[in-house]
């Protein structure tokens, strides 16, 4: 358990850890970007009732929601190189960071797909009918009428899952990625002050989560600007 507890070290460690915040945010940004694209693709078969594709998508979503992110991380880390070796593609030397981004994108894809689907289905069918009746094409009706309303419903859920996955990035170090947590582990190895490192890490994560929450609540207000408070919508 190492040396005696030294609170001064907590402050000293914070700048060392914050230097690696970039990697954590990199994982988060790329996985949200790819996850959003994947989420849209995955949501389509369910929205348009495409046979077979719909069943595949359902199993995919159920699996992602039914297993811990840690297991998914290990499955991608060990499974993807084996899977690609069928076509003689060798990725065993690929940086662990990419495996993390792939895993988190896959995980986001499933969760975002459910959020998008439920948000789009929450829009009243009358809205689309009204759009058609004024002569809009399906594409116009979707982008001008359904989408702006759906994004308003989807946003709080997406914000929650982004914050959740920010916290989940702390597991990336298990496959050897040098993010904040990974740097923390090396600090522990070199100084043997484990408790102080984990307290510093908690402070850093807490501050970032608070910042994210603030940004999200401001954006949510912006998205809701056409909805007066008193009258409940939908």
């Amino acid at each position, binding site marked *: *358990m190492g040396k005696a*507890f030294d609170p001064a070290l907590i402050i000293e460690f914070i700048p060392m850890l914050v230097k690696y915040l970039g990697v954590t945010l990199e994982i988060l940004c790329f996985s949200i970007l790819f996850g959003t694209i994947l989420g849209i693709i995955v949501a389509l078969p369910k929205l348009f009732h495409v046979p077979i594709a719909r069943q595949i998508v359902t199993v995919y979503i*159920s*699996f992602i*929601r*039914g*297993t*811990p*992110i*840690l*297991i*998914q991380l*290990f*499955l991608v880390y*060990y*499974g993807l190189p*084996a*899977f690609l*070796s*069928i076509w003689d593609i060798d990725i065993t030397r690929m940086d662990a960071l990419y495996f993390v981004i792939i895993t988190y994108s896959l995980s986001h894809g499933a969760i975002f797909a459910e959020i998008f689907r439920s948000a789009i289905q929450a829009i009243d069918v009358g809205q689309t009918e009204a759009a058609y009746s004024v002569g809009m094409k399906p594409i116009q009706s979707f982008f001008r009428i359904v989408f702006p309303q759906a994004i308003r419903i989807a946003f709080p859920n997406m914000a929650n899952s982004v914050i959740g996955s920010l*916290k*989940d990035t*702390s*597991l990336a170090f*298990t496959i050897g990625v040098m993010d904040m*947590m990974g740097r923390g582990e090396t600090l522990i190895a070199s100084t043997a002050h*484990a*408790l102080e490192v*984990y*307290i510093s*890490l*908690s402070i850093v*994560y*807490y501050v970032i*989560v*608070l910042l994210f*929450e603030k940004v999200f609540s401001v954006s949510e207000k912006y998205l809701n600007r056409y909805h007066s408070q008193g009258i409940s919508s939908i």
Partner: protein
Amino acid sequence: MVIDFSFVWIAFKEILKAVPLTLILTFVPIVVGFLIGLAVALIRAHNIKFLSPIANFYVSFFRGTPAIMHIMVIYFGFPILLDYVIKKFNLPFQSNHVPIVVFVITALSLTAGSYLSEIIRSGISSVSKGQIEAAYTIGMNTFQVVKRIILPQALAQSVPNITNLIIGFLHTTSIAFLVSQKEITGAANIVASKNLKFLEAFIAAGIIYWAITLIIETIAYFLEKKAKSYSRSAF
């Protein structure tokens, strides 16, 4: 791709032995966390001086940091605190006699408490004030109002949230393998390293987690149906 399917089955049987520990790590923190959450929700609802800001900070901090931090801070910090107390009172006890699983359960209970306090709060606030007033006007006392009016509705309202929390916690227990607990992920890791077949072992572990999740979801579905059977929509 070479997947040794017979080894997946061997690993599956081996990992299955770790399911009870995983379930303990899932449900004990939720039960303890429910008590913590109830206390915290009441403190926040009644706005008790001094305690209320602490409760607010507790909920915000534990919801704002990864569960792995709670486990690690308690795992490393608790023994230091315990040793300090033991030294002060000269107790015939050593902190390294405490099994690690106690630390994990303590940490996860605190995590669960913060999430459950929010769930309980939203459940209670879903009961409209008019119903509580109506109950008082027909002569119920506070205990009766809580027992007959607030709790049944608040709990029915909370079923989906609590289900999500239980599934979330089932998945969170996978972190416990980092402090060498032999739960599903830990067992998978041991089987994998012994035979150098990582993919197969984690496939087996994934299937087990998936199956448990589906079982919990099915039970929750029927529970929700039952809990909401009496409440019909007003419209």
